[in-house]
């Protein structure tokens, strides 16, 4: 009979074989003919021009950053909301202070133009 960890081991082994097997099979059976277009990043696509590290719009980054801030804020709101009844007024005021500080941050970001798509 298998020990409980044996099942995990089998799972792991099958996973590795599944991944490595595909790569190994393709390595063994694929035809070996070399010509120039084989070395392009996209074999059937356009030829790339210039460096591949192009600048992306930082607006994406700013939105992601603001999202992360308010996403993480939820972690603190959640336990407080669950225990709202028993925590009482003091915790409510504390939470208002907490949210106020975050709103100041949001206001700052807004004023500095982080929310506008430039």
């Amino acid at each position, binding site marked *: 009979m298998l020990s409980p960890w044996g099942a995990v081991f089998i799972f792991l082994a099958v996973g590795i074989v599944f991944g490595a097997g595909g790569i190994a099979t393709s390595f063994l059976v694929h035809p070996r003919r070399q010509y120039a277009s084989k070395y392009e990043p996209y074999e059937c696509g356009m030829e790339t021009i210039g460096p591949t590290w192009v600048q992306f719009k930082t607006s994406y980054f700013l939105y992601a950053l603001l999202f992360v801030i308010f996403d993480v804020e939820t972690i603190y709101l959640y336990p407080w909301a669950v225990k709202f009844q028993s925590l009482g007024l*003091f915790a409510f005021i504390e939470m208002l202070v907490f949210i106020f*500080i975050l709103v*100041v941050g949001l*206001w*700052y970001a807004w*004023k*500095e133009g982080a929310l506008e798509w430039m």
Partner: protein
Amino acid sequence: MNVDLSLLNPEIAISILGLAVLVLGLIIPKESRHGLGWLTALGLLGVLGLTISGWNNQGTLYHGMFIVDQYAIFFKITFLTAAFLVTLGSMRFVDDMGDQSEYYSMMLFATLGMMVLASAGDFITLYLGLELMTIAFIVLVCFKRLDGKSVEAGMKYVLLAGMSSAVLLYGLSLIYGVTGSVTISEVGRAVAVTPVPALILGLVMLVAGLGFKISAVPFHMWAPDIYEGAPTPVTSYLAVGSKAASFAILLRVFVAALPGIWANWTMLVAVLSAITIIVGNLVAIPQTNIKRLLAYSSIAQAGYILVGLVTASEQGIKGVMFYAFLYVFATIGAFTVATYFYNVTGSDEIKDYAGLSQRSPLMAVVMLICMLSMAGIPPLAGFVGKFYLFKTIVDNYLWLAFIGLIMSMVSVYYYLRVALVMYRDEPLDNSPINLSTPVAVTLIIAMVATLFIGIYPGPLSQVINMAAHSFFMH
């Protein structure tokens, strides 16, 4: 639940000040933003007064999470003094740089982080204070975002600080796992019962993480680069504030909570201290950039302060606090000269300081006094500080005292090299340097405090005695 919020007054005041400065920067027009520097300086002075007035108001909050004793209050006074002097001395620098409101609010938040750190009674508070301080400093270090050097320094700082805090946290998690508590005093009690290998590993990681912040020698590699790349006022605050705060918490964790374990570690600390003193002083000799020179000298100073941790007695703690306090004036004096000199000439090279004594006698004399104080020449403050530190170890660690003495002489050599350039060499540019009033005030405060503490250390020494005594009360 009964919470005496008056204990938190300084922290609350400084967070309100920080938010207010940030918001005011949005409201008021660009031309009048230089007033924010004055607002910050006056606000810091107010918070300093508030902190001093709470000297006798001691206690703990939230089941020991937040300790307000005279030890913590003394360190808070140190940070606030440093922040005040840096703000006062760097207004013109910041006006040239722009973005005043962000700069000053980050400065205030870094100060808040240090104050929380000095009062930390458990690991969560410790971690939050440490990270608040570090993240604010990261932003400050790369504040000149168009200057490649500054951004590069910020990048190095964020990666290395992230790694060091991850190591520190892993250590904290192991300590929590072994003792089942994160409150420093409870950890101390639990450790006395069960010392196990995982705990030792955790403590080693904690020492490594804090050693990074104080730039003790195996973990010092970041310091010179970041000190050179950062805007000069930030460098001075980084050298003074983040170091003093890390020493405060290092003492709190190891000396107050783990005296039994610490006793076995004194040799390690003595060796660490000796290496830090030797490397810091020797590498400082060939430096040609004033900020790099001061960076290595500040590594050496960290080594001297570590001496106070070797015996971990009340005397040792007193030495650490005394030295941390006078180090504020010496370092900020020297860095304010460097900041202003950079503003006028755009150079940080020592050779450009030629003939500074003719161009601005006050700047030259403050630089000289601050450097001699760091070298420990009587009758300046640095001598008294070193005396208090080394007095604690002459009985058992005479060799360490010898190393400290010899290396102090070495440091006189490279400090005097700067003095020689300032006083002997002919200036390339004869135009006198006019000091603005706030800078002159900063320099005079730094100089007078360094002289006064050196000649008449009595009152400060008594205050520190009280503070060091309060440290052992719980």
